[in-house]
């Protein structure tokens, strides 16, 4: 088996005295879509934050063999990870296009940046219509599209998505996931998705993990995870 793109081994993370992750092992392969499921407070968001160096972390997080633990966030994200944070975190007082340019902060290829901006406008036409509007004034769905497009502007090898469906209407969520699927297929961007909507996420993920109280309790292919009885009762509701 080739070396995975992202490998977490024995990752512990704590906010002050409160330990939130208790030895997480997780991998994401090149071009793979992996979903991380779990209840509120199980440690899903913290796992993403640990990867980005945004929380005090022990253990090992490797991106294509490079150790990330102990490195500053800005260094980590320049290694090819884009983090689309929960609640989107768009820059409300910047306009849409400026948000996209901030996403391309680490890139030096001016022409490539312009081309990518146009490309994501093509994928998300709503953003093109609003390119000179302040991001803060847009709807939740539009902000989510912007956050994802902004994340992709960095040309990441790995996209971390934290609750992309949060606060979105069902139909918008479906459209969003369809687009994510396209992006994954065409760009072979690997994705690690934290999602409440387990059904939807498992329908396009390759593999899944279930986290409980800071530990991985179940992992397998999307079908295996979906087929697990405990899993079904807990997260799928049937």
């Amino acid at each position: 088996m080739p070396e995975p793109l992202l490998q977490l081994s024995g990752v512990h993370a704590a906010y002050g005295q409160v330990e939130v992750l208790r030895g997480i092992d997780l991998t994401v392969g090149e071009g793979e879509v992996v979903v991380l499921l779990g209840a509120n407070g199980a440690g899903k968001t913290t796992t993403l934050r640990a990867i980005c160096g945004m929380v005090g972390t022990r253990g090992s997080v490797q991106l294509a063999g490079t150790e990330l633990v102990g490195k500053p966030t800005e260094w980590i994200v320049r290694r090819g990870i884009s983090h689309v944070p929960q609640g989107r975190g768009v820059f409300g007082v910047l306009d849409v296009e400026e948000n996209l340019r901030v996403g391309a902060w680490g890139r030096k290829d001016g022409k490539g940046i312009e081309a990518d901006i146009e490309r994501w406008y093509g994928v998300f036409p709503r953003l093109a219509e609003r390119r000179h509007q302040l991001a803060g004034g847009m709807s939740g769905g539009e902000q989510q599209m912007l956050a994802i497009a902004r994340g992709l502007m960095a040309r990441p090898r790995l996209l971390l998505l934290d609750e992309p469906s949060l606060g979105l209407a069902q139909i918008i969520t479906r459209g969003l996931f369809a687009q994510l699927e396209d992006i994954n297929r065409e760009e072979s961007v690997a994705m690690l998705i934290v999602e409440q909507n387990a059904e939807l996420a498992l329908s396009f993920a390759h593999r899944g993990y279930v986290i409980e109280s800071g530990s991985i309790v179940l992992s397998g292919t999307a079908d295996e995870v979906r087929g697990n009885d405990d899993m079904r009762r807990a997260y799928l509701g049937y």
Partner: protein
Amino acid sequence: MTARVVLEGSRTHRVWQGAGLLLAALVVLLLPVLTSDFRLGQFSLVIAYAVAVLGLNLVTGFSGQISLGHGAFFGLGAYTTAILVSDHGWSWAATVPVAALLGLALGFVVGVPALRLHGLYLAVITLAVGVAFPVVVSQPIGLALGTGGVAGKPVRIAWDKPAWFGLDVSDRGWTFIVMAAIAGALFWIATGLVRSRIGRSMVALRDNGTAAAISGIWPAEVKTVAFAVSALYGSIGGSLYLLTTPIVSPSTVGFTITLLFITAMVLGGAATVSGAWIGGLAMVFLPYYTAEWAGQLPLLRSLTDQPGLFANVIYGVILIVFIYFVPSGLVPLLTGLRARFLVIVPPEAAAVASGGSATTAGEPDGGLSRPTPAIGGPTDPAAPHAGTPVDTARRR
């Protein structure tokens, strides 16, 4: 060496306390017998400053509100006393309640915006009050009130030692003893205040405003009281100041003295009562010895004819050093030292660790000198820019 464990409020504790008080009284009575009038003047000034610094401790240390206008409260007390004594022939003692009430009123007025405003806005308002005060007293409006303008307000307060007082002390010594007695009472009241319900509310509010509000503390009430009491102490400090110095001028009550009060507070320990004494000592003796020392070094002497400026540099450096390395001030360090010999356990803590060893004993001072996480209390982890503790600790 094992430390002695004493239960707070127990008989042994009272004996220790009594012994401490007796020792303090003895020092106060013996100083005038043993030292010169010059030194007594310095110690009297320590008392005046310590009372003012204590006011700052109450509002900033205990209730966590930034006050950058303490010099104005100090000045209000000093000017009130000076004008009433010089122009209206009042006795010093009669002016003190007036100064205290005016201080209370100004503190209340400054505290009212604190009801709606937090942190930096409050800092800006108090800063403006502190900077505006010396300007107002030197303007025509101040002159009309009898402030004496830029030149300042001279005042002569001379006390004769009463015949019934048995000790052979000078008039200066008698003044010192009276000042010490007044300060003793003020410190005793402050100790009671911080241990009272309202004092505990102040600390709770400082540490976690939301939680305090939920548990039934009324923030508005507590904050305004803290400001008013703080100003009252500052104002009385100003009145006491005139027993040591025969003039008050705009330059005495400028922004610099506010900065020195703040440094003094941090030095002793912001969230302590007794730290104000250390602060007062520093405010008097640090410039004195700095000037002496700078006067002896030809290099420094050639730079300026005002060696007091070197003291300000040292104040600034002390402030930075303490913020970085001793954020809770000297008093908690000293109580830590005392705890190696004598541990005072509050009853609740003793109940938990019954028969507890010396090392696990509760906090000295009944938790008053709890190692404060930061000056003025910890940051609210939920604050918009503070981030989570670990998160910020990890940054860069």
